């Protein structure tokens, strides 16, 4: 990852704009990328100091400094160095410096003769004075030897640099607002899991016209003070936001030495705002479902009756308790009633208990959770008066059995409805 000072960005009023490599500059950027990659490849077995010295030798114009430093950093991040010395430098220093101190202390009149002390040490070790000089600080980082470099093509390095610039901006972010749309529920599920893993908190709001969700992401302490403490987690979350089919982010930054408050925006194409986005036909995304869910969708579609299944795009949010992201939704053709289905499959028991907690704490939507019997959870774990049910299956989900739970939950909801 780049550091914030390696980002090529401009202030435009209260906004920060990352400056990408322009088409005109791209050939030169590729030239620089090639140069750093070639140097790394050529320095395998050489000390880090030599590689850095060679990198400094590349002629870089003042306007290219930041790009060059960034490319160099990304290449160095892909290098593995190791300490390699014939003598143990720490042990050598211990004996040589003790010898020098002793000589100085005992020498009342004569001047301190460095060469004589080095020669005495070398003589005792049966090596040359030059070897002593080389080994003396061989453990300093500059002396470490390049063992391996996981190199990539210059084009891929430029692409990595492009993303790394945006990630590095988020290192100085106090919070991120994002709009995301994902064709497959798994996209949302992955995103929420990652945000939780990164210990970030978020507010979620559904956008009109099924255009996705608006998230406001920061950390627990952000409630009291805008801090950049969560910048690294926000930067790490960027690829997960970008993994959604459509996404746009806006961040509040504290930028530069003076920590000036700025705003920053970036989005995938096209911008998923309600005005511009068009939700693709649902059938088009069925292929992205896990195999077992796709098979269940086919089987449910083949069943006669009023319930019509489709891939769900909903995120069911019980504020303060959690979310669930159903895979399918079944709509009753006559009443319009909707029941959701989330396939938990072989997930952890913990995930099942979290869904049970959601239902118990008042999740208003009707949901059936399909759970493998390997998770050892009884269908009776969910109270029968709630608008939710567990479907425990042995090996593969049975469409008839799922439909029975769907109808059961729908009946409970109908019974709870005010008359």
């Amino acid at each position, binding site marked *: 990852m780049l550091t914030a000072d390696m980002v090529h960005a401009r202030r435009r009023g209260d906004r920060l704009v990352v400056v990408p490599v322009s088409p005109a500059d791209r050939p030169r950027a590729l030239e620089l990328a090639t140069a750093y990659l070639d140097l790394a490849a050529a320095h395998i077995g050489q000390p880090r100091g030599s590689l850095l010295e060679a990198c400094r030798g590349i002629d870089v114009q003042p306007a290219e400094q930041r790009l060059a430093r960034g490319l160099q950093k990304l290449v160095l991040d892909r290098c593995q160095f190791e300490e390699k010395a014939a003598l143990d430098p720490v042990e050598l*220093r211990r004996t040589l410096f003790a010898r020098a101190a002793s000589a100085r202390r005992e020498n009342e009149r004569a001047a301190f003769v460095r060469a004589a002390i080095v020669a005495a040490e070398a003589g005792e070790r049966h090596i040359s004075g030059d070897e002593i000089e080389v080994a003396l600080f061989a453990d300093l980082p500059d002396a470490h030897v390049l063992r391996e470099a996981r190199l990539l093509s210059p084009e891929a390095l430029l692409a990595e640099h492009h993303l790394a610039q945006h990630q590095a901006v988020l290192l100085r972010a106090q919070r991120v607002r994002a709009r995301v749309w994902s064709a497959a529920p798994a996209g949302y599920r992955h995103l929420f899991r990652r945000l939780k893993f990164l210990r970030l908190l978020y507010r979620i709001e559904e956008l009109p016209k099924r255009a996705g969700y608006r998230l406001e992401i920061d950390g627990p*302490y952000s409630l009291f003070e805008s801090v*950049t403490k969560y910048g690294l987690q926000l930067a790490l979350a960027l690829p997960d936001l970008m993994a959604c089919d459509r996404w746009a982010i806006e961040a509040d930054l504290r930028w*530069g030495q003076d920590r000036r408050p700025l705003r920053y925006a970036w989005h995938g194409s096209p911008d998923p705002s309600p005005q511009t986005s068009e939700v693709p036909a649902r059938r088009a995304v069925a292929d992205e479902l896990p195999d077992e869910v796709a098979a269940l969708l086919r089987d449910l579609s083949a069943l006669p009756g009023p319930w019509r299944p489709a891939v769900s795009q909903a995120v069911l949010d019980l504020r303060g308790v959690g979310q669930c992201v159903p895979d399918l939704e079944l709509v009753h053709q006559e009443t319009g009633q909707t029941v959701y289905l989330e396939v938990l499959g072989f997930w952890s028991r913990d995930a099942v208990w979290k869904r049970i907690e959601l239902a118990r704490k008042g999740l208003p939507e009707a949901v059936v959770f399909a759970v493998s019997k390997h998770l050892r959870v009884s269908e009776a774990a969910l109270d029968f008066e709630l608008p939710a049910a567990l479907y425990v299956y042995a090996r593969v989900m049975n469409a008839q059995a799922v439909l029975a739970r769907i109808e059961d939950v729908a009946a409970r909801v109908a019974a709870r409805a005010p008359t």
Partner: protein
Amino acid sequence: MSANSSTSCVATVSQAPPEPPAVELRFRAGTLEVAGLAPTFADLPPSCAWDERTACHRAPASAYAALVQGLRRLKIAYLDQARRYETLASGAVVRREPRPYQSEALAAWNAAGGRGVVVLPTGAGKTLVAHMAIDLRRRSTLVVTPTLDLVRQWYDGLLATFGIPVGIIGGGEYDVQPLTVTTYDSAYLHMEHLGNRFGLLVFDECHHLPGASYSLSARFALAPFRMGLTATPERDAWAGHGLPSETAGDSDTLAALIGPIVYRKEIVALSGDYLSSYETVRVTVELSPAERAEYAAERARYRQFLEANGISMASPHGWTEFIIRSSRNAEGRRAFEAYRRQRAIAFCAPAKLDYVERLLHQHRQDRAIIFTQDNATVHLVARRFLLPAITHQTRVSERSEILDGLAQGRYTAIATSKVLNEGVDVPEANVAIVMSGSGSVREHVQRLGRILRKREGKQAILYELVAGGTSETFTSQRRREHSAYR
């Protein structure tokens, strides 16, 4: 109390069978969650706010004491799942007789409710005051220090005083014990996970604490008891950039994060009785004609660039401005190179090195610490004079060996840059040679402090080598603006 137990506090007096409290305190990532109260409940301390993201009230962890007191006052029963710190089973196994001012400092801190800053000169025994505080309060304690050298030193001290395992976080180690030592950097990284494990925080060299990042480590901790230790509570934010030194306001922040200054004694008040007597000698070394010519030429090029671009290094943003503008074109890059070169000539002039040679010979029976402004000079000195070097790159085990070697007399001198500026305790060291440094008063006072620890018959001496006719003369004047140098 077990580290994993929770505390149920039912403040109401009732004959009815006890019910589990509806209100629950939880520690979450440096904050406190208060679950079970209505969003509109308004009687919590002002630092609490309703958090709709998690449907509970939330407060910074540092509000723990006020929050618990508030709930008790309101007679609200609560289940305390937040507190995970222990009462130590036993206190100190070795107790040293404190000096009068150390007892006074502890009493003042205790009278302030176990929160506050103790200001004592380097070498006056601040560590003992902290040991006494741990012994008095007997809570799991985290000591936060600026460097790994100090981590090692506190580790040794706590182990000897309390005789129980001491944990270390930092420098590649992660071992959490009821007594644990860490660095400010590691505390910033880990406090959101560890902030409920300690009831007492000791911030050594606590002038480092104020600031956007480090201060979060104090806010993310729920420790009701806090002690700050420093010789120089005021931060000199502009040190090294030609600007006025001390800034106001940090004491206010320290007061919010730790507590007010509860006790203060200066070097001059303790010198002779409790600290070694000392003298300071400023030595002006002259550059050779060739060096002087080169210095003048490089300095002129650098100054011309500043003037041409209207940059004032006396302004708070002067240095940043110079960095930005000098990176824009070839002329700027040359000016930056000129800046570095003229500094290098002043900081590491051959005449200075020759003088260091003389001093090393003169003090060959003593224990000397050579201070420089940069690591390159440390390694140059180490190579030329065959002296152990300590920089931020030196591993903890080798640092220990070097400091022990200096204490035992295996080495007569060592070279270092800034990492030994603070706190490191080598009572045998009696000579400091400042080859180069910033304009920071704090740095200069701290460097003097390295050689002031009292030993029988010890007379400490600090040499400050200044390249005559260079900007170092002005820098030297600035850093000596302290009573210790008058």
